[in-house]
């Protein structure tokens, strides 16, 4: 009996988190490419006073009413922030930071005011700060699906226009596209995504659901369509795994775990994604260094051979290094198949001669790349 109840809860929590992951990942892709990730953070924080005002005005705690209130406040904050950016000389981070803290501060003030009124009904409004996924019921999941569905449908409908205005707004405008209107629409879709996340991860952690999946997806692909799909997938994966992990022990909060899961995905992507991953980047740099080092050695060997035998002693003297180092270097060249030991010291193999010739040609055409010995 208890188990069934747990499963029912878990299913709703997992579904709600997955929906959040999908819509956050998809909209976050555009937010990131437009360099508006921080704007997502602003409008998420700004949802708090909207939720409180919706509660004060209606007296009801119907989640959808509160979400709509939060969404409207978020939208207003985003609009204000962009207006400030457009019409004042305030730097972007200052404008966004001020907007975020003023709206959030107002929200906390309203929350305290509500809590001090003697009203048993208020319990639970503060769940919107950090989220409380355990309270998600089937009706909430239906609401989330509606909001997410709307956002994704509009995103699909205007995909081509969003892509062009994000990549090259000036050119888009020259084609006659209403660039500013499309920007407003896209921001409104981000508001819908934030509304989906208010109950699960709350206003403070919502930005992670917009930024992290998109940033992770960008690591794996150079195609916008693939990035969008991957980002949504990463978001969903994080949502479900966060819900499952939090259900595995008592007193593990779902929202923060979802955020941790998506951060883990981002971390893995930053390090191990092919092409853009740091590990491969590091390996490539190392390999290049090794190659240039060997080529440099080969040219030194060639220079020595023009005057006498190529022995560890001669190389050590020429390069001003220890005998041990010179021996190791000659062995490295031998392993490369460029030199071979003989009775009077090392000689160049045909492959080594060929390579040395190529290097000398490159040296002649680009003297700055290989300073001549």
């Amino acid at each position, binding site marked *: 009996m208890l188990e069934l109840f747990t499963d029912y809860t878990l299913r709703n929590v997992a579904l709600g988190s997955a929906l959040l992951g999908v819509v956050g990942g998809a909209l976050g892709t555009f937010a990131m*490419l437009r360099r508006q990730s921080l704007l997502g953070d602003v409008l998420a924080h700004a949802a708090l006073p909207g939720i409180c005002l919706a509660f004060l005005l209606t007296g009801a705690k119907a989640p959808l009413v509160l979400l709509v209130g939060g969404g409207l406040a978020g939208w207003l904050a985003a609009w204000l922030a962009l207006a400030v950016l457009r019409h004042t000389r305030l730097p972007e981070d200052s404008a966004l930071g001020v907007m975020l803290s003023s709206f959030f501060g107002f929200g906390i003030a309203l929350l305290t005011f509500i809590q001090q009124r003697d009203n048993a009904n208020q319990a639970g409004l503060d769940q919107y700060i950090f989220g409380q996924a355990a309270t998600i019921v089937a009706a909430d999941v239906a609401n989330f699906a509606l909001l997410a569905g709307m956002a994704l449908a509009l995103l699909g409908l205007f*995909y081509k226009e969003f892509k062009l205005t994000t*990549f*090259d707004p*000036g*050119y888009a405008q*020259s*084609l006659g596209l209403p660039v500013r209107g499309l920007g407003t629409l896209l921001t409104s879709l981000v508001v819908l995504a934030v509304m989906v996340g208010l109950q699960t991860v709350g206003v403070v952690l919502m930005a992670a659901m917009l930024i992290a999946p998109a940033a992770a997806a960008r690591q794996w692909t150079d195609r*916008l369509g*693939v990035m969008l799909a991957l980002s949504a997938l990463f978001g969903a994966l994080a949502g479900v795994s966060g819900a499952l992990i939090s259900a595995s022990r008592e007193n593990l909060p779902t929202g923060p775990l979802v955020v941790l899961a998506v951060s883990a995905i981002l971390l893995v992507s930053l390090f191990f994604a092919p092409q853009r991953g740091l590990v491969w980047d590091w390996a490539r740099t190392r390999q290049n260094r090794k190659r240039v080092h060997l080529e440099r050695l080969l040219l030194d060997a060639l220079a020595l051979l023009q005057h006498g035998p190529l022995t560890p002693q001669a190389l050590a003297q020429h390069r001003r290094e220890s005998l041990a180092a010179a021996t190791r270097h000659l062995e490295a060249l031998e392993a490369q198949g460029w030199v071979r030991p003989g009775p009077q010291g090392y000689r160049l193999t045909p492959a080594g001669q060929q390579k040395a010739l190529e290097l000398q040609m490159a040296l002649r055409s680009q003297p700055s790349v290989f300073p001549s010995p």
Partner: protein
Amino acid sequence: MTLTQTATLPLEVRDLTVVYREQPVLWDVDLAIPPGQLSAIVGPNGAGKSTLLKAVLGLVPRASGQVWFFGQSLREARARIGYVPQRNTVDWDFPTSVLDVVMMGLYGQLGWFRRPGKREREAAMHCLEQVSLQDLAHRQIAQLSGGQQQRVFLARALAQNADLYFMDEPFAGVDAVTEEAILQVLHGLKSQGKTVVVVHHDLETVREYFDHLTLLNVQVIASGPMEETFTSENLRRTYGAKARTGG
């Protein structure tokens, strides 16, 4: 100039003034661009050359002035106008391919909601061939050299199949291959009877590349056929005493 001539001019600008903050960047610009010619706009840094293109295309607000394209308003003539912005205005790390960018030139014709399909891909491919980039069609755009990026923007504008082209510094910082490719495209457009207006910075080549010249320094200093306009007196008035006349 008779009335019928005015109606067929690809671009006519009257009393155009643009103000950023307090400073006028363009002051009372009058301009008449003749049809079927390669036309250069030249002037020192900060002369308002790019701003002139943007103001004409409605990308920056005009304080005053009127603009006609083929005797029509911008809205009416939009489909006949192609634009090549400066290539450093976009983020080349954007996740998209060369072919995708060129297809963006067709978005205006496609209209709302319709996605580019096979026909659009073929048309874009054809435009890439004209700038010799067909082999790089599926490359991520970040992997292109500066000159190749410039040619992608050119191909995108070609896809618009316009009658009047505006190009913002297409020759800036490109390699010799690209310079040659752009020139070929310009001559191809001219032979099809199209009009091209190019913001140019190089006095050494302007006389060789273009038929018509506008010298700009906030105001129009001189505008007309190349041989009449490219005089040391006009250049001195545009650039001040230190102008080099090339050649």
